[in-house]
């Protein structure tokens, strides 16, 4: 079964992998393939490279789906950027019981940090946006280009961390007494008292005050945070969701990717495909023997021949994964035409 066939029945495709492997470009190209096959597709991406964003018509400040006619084929290709701050803010506005709580939370300085660049917030908001788009049922297929992580598995763990932070057993320590009673006197457990005292020594009372205030306001939303996360997990583990793992072809990246795929399977996510992007240059993939009197070229050929052997070995050792190799055209992405061209290369894998 080819790459596209393995993904064609999906209603959600999660494109994941470590940063810098070309995940966003592949997501866009995959969207173009599916649109060509008649589907109405939305590609959701966070912080794309400037040129790719321009190619997709994603100008700064535009977060609603944008139609890209040149990549739409028989169907329709839409692209949209994810803005974590905007999503968090909307989430708060939508689920806060009173406008005062929304205002207080937005004014909290830790909240302001949480919604911008901090660990977990991008992942949480990406998944929330995915869920919203799927629930609207406006698209046949939604492709989520996940935020760049140091380690691919971070993406799956991040939402649990956010939910863990709003666990009611935890927040109650910080909010009992509605903030009027000092935090320390609210804590009954001796162990927690000692731990909070240690935290205060490290951070200071101002930080604890902000934290307490943050939890107090967030406590009104914790049910929604948990509920949304539960629905996201259900969606990601559902029969209509597929994972596409995009990776580089370096050996140490392959080992990391293998662990990630194993973890995906063990965690109950559905079968996934592995795309080794830029496995070797196009010219190399088009020939078997190269005899030249160019020394520099010959060195390159020897290098790619060895790499090909290593990749074949990896594929043989991991036959439980569907692995596809994509050659590198060596040309920079200059516009939608190049995305369409790449999509044609994906279609023949």
């Amino acid at each position, binding site marked *: 079964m080819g790459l596209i066939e393995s993904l064609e029945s999906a209603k959600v495709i999660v494109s994941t992998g470590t940063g810098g492997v070309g995940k966003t470009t592949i997501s866009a190209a995959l969207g173009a393939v599916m649109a060509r096959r008649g589907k109405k597709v939305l590609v959701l991406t966070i912080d794309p490279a*400037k040129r790719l964003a321009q190619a997709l018509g994603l100008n700064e400040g535009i977060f609603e789906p944008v139609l890209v006619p040149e990549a739409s084929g028989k169907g329709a290709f839409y692209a949209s950027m994810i803005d974590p701050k905007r999503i968090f803010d909307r989430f708060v506005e939508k689920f806060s019981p009173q406008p005062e709580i929304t205002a207080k939370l937005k004014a909290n300085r830790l909240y302001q940090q949480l919604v911008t660049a901090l660990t977990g917030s991008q992942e949480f908001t990406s998944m929330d946006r995915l869920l919203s788009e799927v629930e609207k049922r406006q698209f046949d297929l939604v492709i989520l280009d996940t935020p760049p992580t*140091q380690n691919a598995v971070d993406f799956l763990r991040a939402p649990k961390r956010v939910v863990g932070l709003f666990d009611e057993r935890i927040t109650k320590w910080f909010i009992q007494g509605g903030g009027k009673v000092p935090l320390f006197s609210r804590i009954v457990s001796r162990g927690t008292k000692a731990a909070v005292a240690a935290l205060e020594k490290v951070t*200071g009372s*101002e930080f604890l005050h902000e934290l307490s205030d943050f939890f107090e306001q967030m406590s009104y939303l914790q049910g929604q945070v948990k509920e949304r996360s539960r629905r996201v997990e259900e969606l990601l583990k559902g029969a209509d969701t597929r994972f596409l793992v995009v990776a580089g072809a370096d050996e140490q990246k392959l080992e990391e990717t293998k662990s990630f795929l194993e973890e995906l399977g063990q965690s109950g996510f559905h079968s996934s495909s592995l795309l080794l992007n830029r496995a070797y240059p196009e*010219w190399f993939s088009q020939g078997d023997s190269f005899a030249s009197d160019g020394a520099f070229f010959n060195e390159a050929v020897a290098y790619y021949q060895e790499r090909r052997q290593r990749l074949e070995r990896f594929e043989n050792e991991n036959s439980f994964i569907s692995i596809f190799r994509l050659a590198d055209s060596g040309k920079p992405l200059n516009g939608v035409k190049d995305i369409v061209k790449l999509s044609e290369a994906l279609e023949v894998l």
Partner: protein
Amino acid sequence: MAASLAKSLAVQGRKTLLVELGGSRFFEFIYGERLGFEPKLLEKNLCLAIWEGEACLREYLQYLFKLSRLVDLFFDNRIMQALVHGAPGLKELALTGKITSRERRVGPELPFDEIVVDAYSTGHFLALLAAPPAMAEAISFGPMGAQSRGIQQVLSSEGCRYLVVVTPEELPLTEGHELAHAIQRQVGRSPLIVKNRCWPSVMPETPPANVPADFWETWKSRRDLQQHFDLSPFEVGGELPQIWSNDNRHIIDRLSLIWLEEWEHHGAH
């Protein structure tokens, strides 16, 4: 690149610590050694460590409280576990705190002449750099605010140098240039840009027999970008050749020799 730089410093007799941030464990794979938070001697003058936020925080608390029992109590506590894993900025601050601890004289001694950090890729690294000023702004009083300001001071000081590594291809050059600008905005320091995987700038006049046209075109394109892509106002700190090898240790060894030659001719930056 970071490993070759660290190795060349070690070869020159500088006691060097090479640090990997986060969980990719690249150096464990390369060196075939189990690495952890504590520095491990791998070669003469060269130690390696992997630093993650939680381990840095644990060490800092141990340094502050001296009592292991209290530190264990803190990390075993369910509330603190949730905070450490999810509280805004805490891990980033612990990590940048550890990186700058030697200069701030806070925490256990780090007996090294040089610390080379193999940092995160673009977006993650900028988020890491953004944490100390953001926290300093949010928390103006108390130890957290003071530590954040101290960290920011070191990250912006002469003692901290930034290298942005690019390859001579359009997208990496553009992104590297943007990253250099972002670092400059964030810490007020100009990073050096290092071009890696450079192909020979002197090409034969005509393609050698049987060399595919694509390869020839790629060579010309890389050469032109390498020579003409405008990276101003940043200084280029080195041009390192493409080494056609799938063996990372071999690449590190070769590049470290090139760094040494470069410094012999031009002096270290």
